[in-house]
């Protein structure tokens, strides 16, 4: 086994343990942290495949932004665990079906590979000076420009929707208008009067 293979199996094992932790942890905060750990490990797997751009962006977007907001919400929720478990038997059949589907999909990939069909060719290791980031950028902005722009528009739509859902003016709430506060000048608030120090008698 080469060093890369040893690392691959080590990190995969940790990834699986973390993924199991996500669904078995009792405390939702611990579950979210296991998920962060799982993201880290999958980023490392990508690094081993020389996909450094994807690996770093995974950490940047999911670990650095998405999961922080997730934790933010989870920490503030006071989740009643007993109530959450009530629906377990009701939804169990659906869960089992989905789990079986995933197992079949992964199994079929393994089966196809075993047939010797070259469905996923061996990873091409880049030459010296090869930049994963540059290649991805070139593809995204030439060949896949329209799908890329479509995804961007979709995200913009989501942003606008989220903002319009939360933007509402409630009456009777005292808020501060910071723009007005910042733009205040001294002469709006205070009037300096010039007068003699002493009055004539």
């Amino acid at each position, binding site marked *: 086994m080469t060093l890369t293979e040893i690392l691959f199996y080590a990190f995969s094992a940790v990834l699986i343990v973390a993924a199991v932790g996500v669904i078995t942890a009792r405390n939702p905060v611990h579950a979210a942290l296991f998920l*962060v750990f799982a993201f880290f490990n999958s980023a490392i797997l990508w690094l081993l495949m020389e996909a450094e*751009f994807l690996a770093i962006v995974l950490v940047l977007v999911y*670990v650095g932004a998405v999961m*922080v907001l997730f*934790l933010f919400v989870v920490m503030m929720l006071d989740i009643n665990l007993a109530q959450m478990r009530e629906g377990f038997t009701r939804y169990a059949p659906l869960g089992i079906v989905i789990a079986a589907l995933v197992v079949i999909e992964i199994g079929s990939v393994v089966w196809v590979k075993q047939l010797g069909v070259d469905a996923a060719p061996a990873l091409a290791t880049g030459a010296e000076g090869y930049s994963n980031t540059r290649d991805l950028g070139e593809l995204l902005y030439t060949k896949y420009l329209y799908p890329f722009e479509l995804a961007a528009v979709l995200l913009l739509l989501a942003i606008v929707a989220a903002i319009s859902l939360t933007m509402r003016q409630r009456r009777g709430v005292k808020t501060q208008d910071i723009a007005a506060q910042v733009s205040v000048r001294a002469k709006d608030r205070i009037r300096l009067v010039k007068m003699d120090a002493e009055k004539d008698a």
Partner: protein
Amino acid sequence: MSGLPDFAASLLSFLPDWAQAIVWYGVVALILFISVILTMAFLTLAERRVIGSIQARIGPNRVGWNGIGQPFADVLKLLVKEVIVPSSSSKFLFVLAPLLALIPALCTWAVMPLWPGFTVADINAGLLYILALTSAGVYGVILAGWAANSKYAFLGAMRAAAQMVAYEIAMGFALVGVVMAAGSLNLGEIIDAQRGGFFSYFFWWLLPLFVVYFVSGVAETNRAPFDVVEGESEIVAGFHVEYSGMAFAVFFVAEYVNMILISALTAVFFFGGWLSPFEGYPFPSWLAWLAAPHFIWFFLKISFFLFCFLWFRATFPRYRYDQIMRLGWKVFIPVTLVWIFVEGLFWIYKIGPWAVA
């Protein structure tokens, strides 16, 4: 990474190939680690002396010559104090949180170009790596606040999470401008793109982005005037209110290492890193070293920005929390977006030094 330098390879020739790399990079990382920690230690002294001088008092000057031994006395004091773990805290996370704050801060130094031709790990996507790690640093603060099981700590953690997410976006956009100008994500190449003396540094062309980046950097490190995360007068000490002894010191170290990091990154992105500001000037031969790129220039630039950090702290009153959010979301992000557009126009009409390429 192009293998080991020759002298290291001959020194470690008794080891197998893979062990040579591990030993060499281990030693380099250790040296870098110690240098950063020592810089941080003396930065704490500098901070107290500088702010003391700004506030017309003396500051610590008793330990050693002019107080030069003060950092070591502080470390010793913190070392012998007891680390108290609150009984109703989440113990594992409580101990883990300071490490999660410190480790990303130190890891980032791996891609920093320290002097011409030397970077511990010269990777292509260095800038993204830095963004990813600095954004991971927020976990230390959030977990510290949550694990302590105290409402003040928790309030601090919530503030930290919201503030860091807000300013990270502005920071990221400011760096998009730098990447557009340099045409590379590699920090060494970003420095190379600024060759040609003081007037070819990026900050002339990216002035709004420079301001946004540096102020966001101050906010990211939770330094005054953006230190509502700690906010002594409102929430005691924020996320580290329950920490004592070395566990507290680790948070402290992480904050100062991040300050040095932001200063170094500002120097690299906008002020040419280790390039000399006098490059290309016709110096007489005995002064020619003034025009050559050297570590000393990098050091001076870092020192200047660190001084600005201390200066801000002594000058500005603390922002109110809603003002911080407004500044991040409604001022900085639009400014960066507009300037990226302007930069695109520069590029199209071939204005500016980089447009030739």
